């Protein structure tokens, strides 16, 4: 079983290795300018230095904290809003036009105004991330709540379930696949907005470091930090998929 999965990965790893080797040779023979693209081995050494000295911990934690806080706040608001709008028609009528008005605003464009109001500190960054996360989660939650099985709802009413009980034990689980799909989209957006906010505010975290290293012409360091950021993106995605599968274990596997 294990050897089989290793075998299926082998061609991909081989190609990746060849690409890196080609890059290394291209730099060594002077075909690609060293100032633009240091050889992969040099980047690997720099990366190793960053990892071994523990220098990577503080910026990584700072970006992770930003992503998690913004993601949690945005998701909580989105789920609460989506549930309320999906369940109470009055709330839907009240908030739907506002949501439709706010949704098409590219959230990245909100970072400059937010910087004027909230400064360049944590509040601004968390708000940017939370705003980007809020809308996809809200819209998906709404869709999920609407899709709840009518018959089940009638059955709940027949059994005299109260609103809170029905929401908690019927609507929320039924909407969960939609909510999680929305959260998965938002996770990528959260990372994008976090990196952007760090770059524009010029302080803290991986995004700022990558831009700063490029402007200081510390190219090897720039690529090393970029790799750390890519691994963070990969890990967050993987963790979320794992959590999603656990949370939806009762659902039949779709593929």
């Amino acid at each position, binding site marked *: 079983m294990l050897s089989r999965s290793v075998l299926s990965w082998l061609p991909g790893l081989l190609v990746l290795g060849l690409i890196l080797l080609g890059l290394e040779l291209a730099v060594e023979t002077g075909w690609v300018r060293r100032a633009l693209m240091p050889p992969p081995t040099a980047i690997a050494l720099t990366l190793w230095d960053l990892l071994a000295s523990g220098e990577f911990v503080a910026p990584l934690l700072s970006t992770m904290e930003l992503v998690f806080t913004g993601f949690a706040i945005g998701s909580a608001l989105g789920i609460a809003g989506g549930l309320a709008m999906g369940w109470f028609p009055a709330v839907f009528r009240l908030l739907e036009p506002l949501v439709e008005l706010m949704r098409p*605003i590219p959230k990245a464009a909100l970072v*400059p105004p937010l910087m004027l109001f909230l400064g360049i500190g944590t509040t601004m960054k968390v708000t940017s991330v939370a705003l980007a996360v809020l809308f996809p989660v809200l819209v998906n939650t709404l869709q999920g709540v609407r899709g709840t099985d009518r018959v089940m709802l009638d059955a709940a009413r027949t059994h005299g379930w109260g609103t809170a009980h029905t929401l908690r034990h019927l609507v929320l689980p039924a909407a969960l696949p939609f909510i999680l799909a929305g959260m998965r989209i938002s996770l990528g957006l959260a990372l994008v907005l976090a990196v952007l906010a760090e770059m524009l505010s010029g302080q803290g975290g991986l995004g700022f470091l990558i831009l700063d290293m490029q402007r200081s012409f510390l190219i090897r360091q720039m690529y090393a930090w970029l790799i750390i950021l*890519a691994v963070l993106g990969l890990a967050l995605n993987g963790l979320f998929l794992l959590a999603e599968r656990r949370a939806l274990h009762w659902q039949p596997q779709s593929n």
Partner: protein
Amino acid sequence: MRALARPSSGFLLILALLLLWEVSARFDWMNSPNWPPLSVVLAALARDSLGGELPLLLGGTLWRMFAGLLAGGAAGVIVGLLFASLPVTRRLFGLTVELIRPIPIPAIIPPLVLFLGLDNTMKVTVVGLTAFFPVLTNTMQGVRAVEADALAMGRTFGIGFWRRSLHIVLPACLPYVFAGFRVALALALVVTVVAEMIAGEQGVGHYLVLMQFAGRAPEMYATVILLAVLGYGLNRGFLAFERRALHWYFALGAQRN
């Protein structure tokens, strides 16, 4: 129709919020020079978009966005068709593609600046990279959803690989490709603006940051409003285009997802 007869609570809420914006700014409740009244913002919007530099900047932004979207989207369709119909290619290159995908796009801009400079080439490349992934994913899904019967029929009639790809697989997965493009379109606008904000001195994104630094709040909000309208309009336009281009698909009673 009903909304015309009796304004719904939602529209009243929006009106109230806009009124609150205007009043709070007029009486300076926020105590901030960065909170201009709505009327001033709208005046700035009208001024800048009628006589000012905004239309030119917007044109440049849109040009970069569409160039990147088309290039990246076309690459996504081609690679998606290849990956899905020739599993060997996916075996070989899938890993590399999956390793690039999770990099947050603003982080790709600094290295690209080194290679491609600050101008159009870099920005179109960034947008292309953004558009590539959703189109790739959806195209692959689309190919998997092609009916086995249609493929078997093609094979029975002795249609070769390329004609089969072009005349059976491609039309059948077109709705998926379009869905991928719609996702990519929204991302492309955001990423174009982001690239303009971070690097170079072009387009609406740079204008936005410039106005922020210059402390010209009305122009800044006007730009945000313009971008929102643009995002909305692009999505609407795309939906209409999709309806026309895929009329046979919707005629079969398919629901838009």
